[in-house]
């Protein structure tokens, strides 16, 4: 008996359940057990009576209730009459007991419907629990006994007027849950009233009731939409989630209802309960896709002035400073992204996932990365959560490897994982594979192949095959690895290897006859039909490479033909045909024999095939023109199969949805529309009345846009609820601030975007997207362009051009060249690609995209390193980079808040890896140590300088307990690395330390200890290493410089090596000597750099004015005059070098 059958027995019929044992001491009429069969009819009759009473005099339902009470004396039904009796008793405790048992019956799925009249009477009970249980019963059975259910309605109607909001709420809840079509008008009325209720709880309930009513009677749609519209205006966080859900169910297409409430919803979002958040976020995702333009356009430039200021105005969002901003975004679009971001920290996995999908579908490409960490965190959750999250990551990782590559290890399979989780992890690992990490991944795969879970082992082999085809470097390695697997003892492993090898050989039709021969040898031992078929196919396809073996295989097959599986038979026929064509001398007879066998096979597929092949290859009088093409038909070069991810086409569904999970369109799935080419009028979202006015600090070098004033109108008449006001106003102030900046800054982005637009799809007019930029915008645009043109390559926090463009070399080229075709955009797009200055390199690495042009400019040693980055696939960025950059942002939030508002500390520029010796292996008895300044912000304390120390054991014995001992001066603040327990001979380990030099170049002396010895060492920093780069605009620079004149200025005329006069070379040498940031400059002859000291945060401004004949005036402005003179000396030296 199958399980399903067994289940059928469990299915409740109309058979009445056995009466549960009655509690002792209860008087029971056992004679009732023998009562008549017609009892059911009596119930119905009495029910009809009731209904009549009700219909004629609905107000007298009380009377009806008493009427029932008297009648059921004779309405006995075998089974539940004891319950009925109890329900009709006067004691609440008995009734309660009975109801509990009834609920038990419902829970078990047994039918308790004949108790309906007895139960429904208790709906007016004073006992809360009893009442609740009656509600449970009503909701379950009202649909089946609609007429009787009407009896309860007036009780609810009365409760709807109750002074207590909870009673009102729950009355509406149950009333709307009773699926009785007759009461639709009553429900409609109740909903409308409740929607205007003072209590948010009742309003929430009414929002829920809307969906219930709609599902019962879709004709009410118009009226319900009115209620929804009203409730959408509600400012309570309690209501927001429910009403949006009602909106999604009733009228998801009425996007116009959202306009006015958009900003309010965004601002309330954080305070809405978690389930509501999910619903609102997914609705807003859909909304945003119809209302805003795509942030993914290529070639958009960005202006760091505005970008920086944009974040300045928003102190909470410092983190975002990392994410450069290459595009003008509608301020509302930005508002949404900003307000959803904190929800990534939610404990509710559904919320995190919905924010992740929002970022995926709405955020500019480079900002999507912030969701990575949170998604990886979800992998710690329950198995089912993992499953869904991994599915989504699998889809994401196809398009953007860089997002998850640093977290590759999180996807390593654990042996305790369920099979479907393992397979998904494998999928993701395969997606993440590239030249740089393939060796690691393959090593990991080797482990998996040995897994006991054979389905998983087989999937691993498939994955290896995919890696082999995708990454040509490892194809041979993989192939030989797979060949090794052919001698595995496990049948499934071997079979799967054969299948994968077949595919691989097909993609690489070079000399692999050895492998084919090897497989031919194995042929006898392989029993899995798919594998056998694959080998036969290979034999046939490459029969000319193995002229001796193929006929022999065919001979063996002829012997066993009848015993084979269909698929093997088909391939045998194929092989025979191919051999007949190439080597008919040896195989003619064999072929004919096989064709004869096939002719009488049981399977008609094989009979058909045989007939077809025979006509095709064996020449006879009937065979037509095809015969001479037989060879070309059968031995045509076949395209290699493409091994690609099963998740490739899943991106057509919105992430996080059921449809995505199933890869089929689920009922009620709402398509995510494409971005509109031209954003619809954004003023529709303007609300007359908004939060209090915000005051902005006027920002240097910025013009306030009148637009934003219009946007957030100043008059306030109505106040938000207290809570939302306090949080909301902050938000809106920052957002409006940002809006003005963005629109200011965005001007040229927009222009380039437009031109890009026109160049790509020429039909569309660029003026369409003009809607918001005002005249001053365009003026500024011109100015900026002028500024920009001369200094292409030296931008700090450089523009982070769209990641698509950076994605891979060729594409980037192509896109920029296409941009060039439209003359207007030329400068911009060039700027764009050029702007990848060293400062962003580190970031890029993380994003694993590189623009080839950077290469040319960056330092020699760096470009050597970066050569790998040319390849389309990402490099393996060192993990520490990632960690540190995120930490950096944390640190910024923490400690750098005192920095003047005109600048920001940026990510450090590339590290010129100048390594110094700390301890020579001769003096260190085998222990040698080298260090370099990593130029990363120190992780331990912001005022420390990060130093990376490489410890190597050059002795022949292992060293133990390497740690840092005494230090001098004793007050020296060092963050030591953790004791290294053991360092094997020839091994080396890199550790990082933090040292607080207190802005002096005084050496840090300390002892490096092993278990036996102690060595005094010292680290003396170059003055340039005591700095942190900071970004500022030229205007800010000049302003700050103006504050640091006189005593604080040190300058000298220096002579530079002639090779160093180009701006690239200057940047290179300055950055080599000091850890400063490049300040964009509008003049060719001026080069400016800005930094600040690590410990005290004092500004250090370096400017270099080129004079004739390779001399230059080098000026350093800083409070720290000692540092200035030392830095001057260093820079002079550096620039003098060729």
């Amino acid at each position, binding site marked *: 008996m199958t399980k399903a059958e067994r289940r059928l027995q469990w299915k409740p019929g109309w058979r009445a359940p056995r009466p549960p044992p009655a509690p002792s001491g209860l008087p029971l009429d056992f004679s009732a057990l023998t009562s008549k069969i017609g009892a059911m009819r009596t119930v119905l009759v009495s029910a009809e009576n009731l209904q009549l009473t009700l219909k004629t005099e609905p107000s007298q339902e009380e009377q009806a209730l008493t009427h029932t009470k008297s009648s059921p004396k004779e309405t006995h039904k075998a089974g539940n009459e004891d319950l009925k009796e109890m329900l009709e008793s006067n004691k609440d405790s008995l009734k309660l007991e009975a109801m509990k048992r009834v609920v038990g019956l419902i829970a078990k799925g047994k039918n308790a419907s004949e108790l309906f009249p007895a139960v429904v009477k208790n709906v007016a009970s004073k006992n809360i629990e009893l009442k609740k249980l009656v509600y449970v019963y009503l909701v379950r059975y009202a649909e089946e006994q609609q007429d009787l259910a009407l009896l309860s309605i007036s009780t609810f109607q009365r409760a709807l007027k109750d002074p207590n909001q909870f009673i009102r709420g729950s009355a509406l809840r149950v009333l709307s849950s009773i699926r009785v079509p007759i009461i639709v008008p009553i429900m409609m009325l109740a909903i409308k009233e409740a929607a205007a209720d003072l209590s948010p709880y009742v309003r929430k309930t009414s929002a829920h009731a809307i969906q219930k009513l709609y599902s019962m009677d879709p004709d009410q749609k118009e009226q319900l939409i009115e209620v929804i519209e009203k409730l959408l205006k509600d400012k309570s966080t309690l209501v927001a989630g429910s009403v949006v859900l009602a909106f999604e169910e009733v009228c998801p297409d009425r996007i116009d209802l959202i306009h006015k409430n958009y900003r309010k919803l965004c601002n309330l979002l954080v305070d809405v309960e978690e389930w509501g958040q999910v619903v609102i976020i997914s609705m807003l995702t859909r909304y945003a896709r119809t209302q805003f333009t795509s942030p993914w356009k290529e070639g958009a430039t960005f202006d760091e002035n505005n970008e920086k200021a944009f974040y300045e105005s928003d102190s909470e969002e410092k983190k975002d400073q990392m994410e450069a901003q290459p595009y003008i975004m509608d301020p509302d679009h930005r508002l949404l992204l900003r307000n959803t971001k904190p929800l990534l920290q939610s404990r509710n996995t559904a919320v995190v996932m919905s924010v992740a999908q929002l970022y995926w579908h709405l955020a500019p490409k480079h900002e999507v990365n912030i969701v990575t960490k949170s998604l990886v965190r979800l992998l710690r959750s329950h198995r089912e959560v993992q499953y869904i999250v991994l599915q989504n990551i699998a889809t994401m990782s196809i398009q953007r490897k860089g997002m998850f590559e640093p977290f590759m290890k999180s996807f390593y399979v654990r042996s305790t994982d369920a099979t479907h989780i393992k397979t998904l992890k494998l999928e993701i690992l395969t997606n993440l594979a590239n030249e740089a990490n393939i060796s690691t991944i393959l090593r990991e795969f080797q482990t998996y192949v040995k897994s006991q879970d054979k389905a998983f082992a087989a999937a691993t082999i498939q994955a290896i095959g995919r890696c082999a085809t995708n990454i040509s470097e490892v194809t041979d390695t993989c192939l030989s690895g797979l060949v090794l697997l052919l001698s595995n003892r496990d049948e499934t492993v071997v079979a799967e290897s054969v299948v994968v090898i077949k595919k691989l050989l097909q993609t690489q039709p070079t000399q692999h006859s050895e492998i084919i021969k090897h497989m031919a040898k194995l042929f006898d031992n392989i029993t899995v039909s798919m594998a056998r078929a694959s080998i036969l196919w290979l034999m046939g396809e490459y029969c000319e490479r193995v002229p001796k073996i193929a006929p022999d295989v065919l001979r063996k097959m002829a012997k066993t033909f009848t015993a084979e599986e269909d698929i093997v038979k088909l391939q045998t026929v194929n092989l025979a045909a191919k051999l007949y064509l190439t080597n008919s001398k040896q195989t003619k007879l064999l072929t004919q024999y096989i064709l004869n066998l096939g002719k009488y096979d049981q399977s008609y597929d094989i009979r058909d095939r045989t007939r077809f092949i025979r006509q095709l290859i064996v020449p006879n009088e009937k065979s037509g023109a095809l015969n001479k093409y037989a060879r070309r038909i059968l031995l045509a070069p076949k395209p290699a199969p493409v091994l690609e991810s099963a998740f490739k086409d899943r991106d057509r569904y919105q992430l996080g949805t059921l449809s995505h999970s199933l890869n089929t369109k689920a009922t009620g799935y709402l398509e995510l529309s494409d971005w509109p080419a031209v954003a619809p009028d954004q003023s529709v979202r303007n609300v007359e009345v908004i939060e209090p006015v915000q005051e902005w600090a006027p920002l240097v070098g910025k013009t306030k846009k009148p637009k934003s004033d219009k946007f957030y109108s100043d008059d306030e008449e109505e106040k938000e609820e207290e809570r939302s006001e306090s949080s909301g106003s902050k938000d809106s102030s920052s957002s409006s601030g940002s809006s003005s900046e963005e629109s200011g800054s965005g001007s040229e982005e927009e222009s380039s975007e437009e031109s890009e637009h026109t160049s790509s799809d020429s039909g569309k007019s660029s003026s369409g997207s003009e809607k918001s930029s005002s005249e001053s915008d365009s003026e500024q645009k011109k100015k900026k362009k002028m500024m920009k043109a001369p200094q292409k390559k030296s931008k700090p926090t450089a523009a982070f051009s769209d990641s698509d463009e950076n994605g891979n070399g060729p594409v980037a080229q192509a896109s920029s060249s296409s941009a060039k075709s439209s003359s207007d955009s030329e400068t911009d797009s060039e700027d764009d690609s050029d702007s990848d200055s060293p400062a962003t390199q580190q970031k890029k690495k993380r994003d694993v995209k590189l623009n080839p042009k950077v290469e040319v400019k960056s330092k020699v040693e760096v470009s050597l390193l970066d050569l790998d980055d040319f390849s389309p696939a990402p490099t393996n960025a060192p993990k520490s980079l990632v960690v540190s950059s995120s*930490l950096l942002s944390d640190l910024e939030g923490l400690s750098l808040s005192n920095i003047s508002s005109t600048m920001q500390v940026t990510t450090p520029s590339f590290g010129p890896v100048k390594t110094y010796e700390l301890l020579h292996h001769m003096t260190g008895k085998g222990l040698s140590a080298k260090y370099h300044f990593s130029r990363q912000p120190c992780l331990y304390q912001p005022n420390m300088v990060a130093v990376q120390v490489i410890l190597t054991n050059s002795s022949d014995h292992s060293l133990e307990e390497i740690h840092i001992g005494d230090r001098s001066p004793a007050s020296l603040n060092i963050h030591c690395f953790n004791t290294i327990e053991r360092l094997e001979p020839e091994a080396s380990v890199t550790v990082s330390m933090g040292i607080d030099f207190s802005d002096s170049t005084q050496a840090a002396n300390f002892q490096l200890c092993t278990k036996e010895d102690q060595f005094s060492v010292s680290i003396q920093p170059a003055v340039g290493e005591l700095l942190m780069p900071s970004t500022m605009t030229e205007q800010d620079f000049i302003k700050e410089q103006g504050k640091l004149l006189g005593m604080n200025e040190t300058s000298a005329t220096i002579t530079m090596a002639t090779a160093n006069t180009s701006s690239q070379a200057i940047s290179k040498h300055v950055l080599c000597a000091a850890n400063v940031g490049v300040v964009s400059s509008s003049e060719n002859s001026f080069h400016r750099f800005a930094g600040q000291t690590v410990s005290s945060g004092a500004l250090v401004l370096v400017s270099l004015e080129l004079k004739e004949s390779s001399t230059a005036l080098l000026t350093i402005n800083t409070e720290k005059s000692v540092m200035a003179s030392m830095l001057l000396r260093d820079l002079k030296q550096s620039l003098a070098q060729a």
Partner: protein
Amino acid sequence: MIHSLFLINASGDIFLEKHWKSVVSRSVCDYFFEAQERATEPENVPPVIPTPHHYLISVLRHRIYFVAVIQSEVPPLFVIEFLHRVVDTFQDYFGVCTEAAIKDNVVVVYELLEEMLDNGFPLATESNILKELIKPPTILRTMVNTITGSTNVGEQLPTGQLSVVPWRRTGVKYTNNEAYFDVVEEIDAIIDKSGSTITAEIQGVIDACVKLTGMPDLTLSFMNPRLLDDVSFHPCVRFKRWEAERILSFIPPDGNFRLLSYHVSSQNLVAIPVYIKHNITFREGSSQGRFDLTLGPKQTMGKAVESVLVSSQLPRGVLNANLNPTQGTYTFDPVTKAGRTPAEVGSRSAGSDAPPARLAHTAREVERLKVNRLDMYGEKYKPFKGIKYMTKAGKFQRDDLVCITGVSTLTYETVTLEPSSIITFTSAGPN
């Protein structure tokens, strides 16, 4: 959204059903049973199963499948998260979430489910609110209820749902005002065959038990918040304050809750306090094999590794194991280890490709999160505060306020062994 819920036990019986919209016949579960039959292990049942008219989303916990029936598009995580929340609530109410407990308390279960969902959309999922609505059953209350006929449904209506702090019930009163925080960190690691660490990462949580009168407003600050790399909060935590100052500021729910879970960023590789070596040999031509496992402490900065637990998931084919631990004791559970599918026994032939050892365990790490101070505002009294640090302890030990360090639990898993092999378990135990 969620149409119906079916609870299915390990033997495939539906023992509870609840419908929030119109009734869905339980025959819809047949699709689930089909999938269950196809899956070799109970965990392998796919969480999302499409059927012609419905979608089934299920979670498996405590050997009970919670199967939700969905009719239209909904984020699957939404349903999964909710089902887990249901299980957590049951556990909170009944102590355990077993079939027996659910059957015993079917009325409470029904009342809870009724409150938790309205028309398939979550309504009240905070345990503080639910406890106000429906009192958890205790032995005493059950007795009183049967005698006096009083109810376990809250007499007064919940106010929490309406307030700004929906997670906290109002009118909380305690004579002893206490706030306990457990900082629990665990290391997850994968160690390969040769004993070197492939990955190791530290995850931590702060579990709190706060029993404070009134509406206290707590702030918790850390000595080393920089360690926190990725965090997720209980909704009570004010996110803005955290962003700006790295201080946890919150009005706590009453009772037990998880305040924070975090990932520790550590630059260096996490040092694992024990080493483990294993060796498997097979006797040619016999179905027996030998399995050696050596486990010992690494240097752990003078701290002892305590209560080491090694658990090894043996393959289904293993019929019996004979272990000789040098230290401690061992148990072998033939039901879960060997009794699964004896059918596969014959198919595996003896050989020497030892599978990789994969190790997941927890222990002390490099540097741990330290709480700096805990302050309370908004109330007059002086609470008793306690903070406990643990590197993984299985249970929530509330009365134990001693700072425990170096407790570690270690799970050793996955070795292939031939049927009825002899296992020698050598454990150089911790000092």
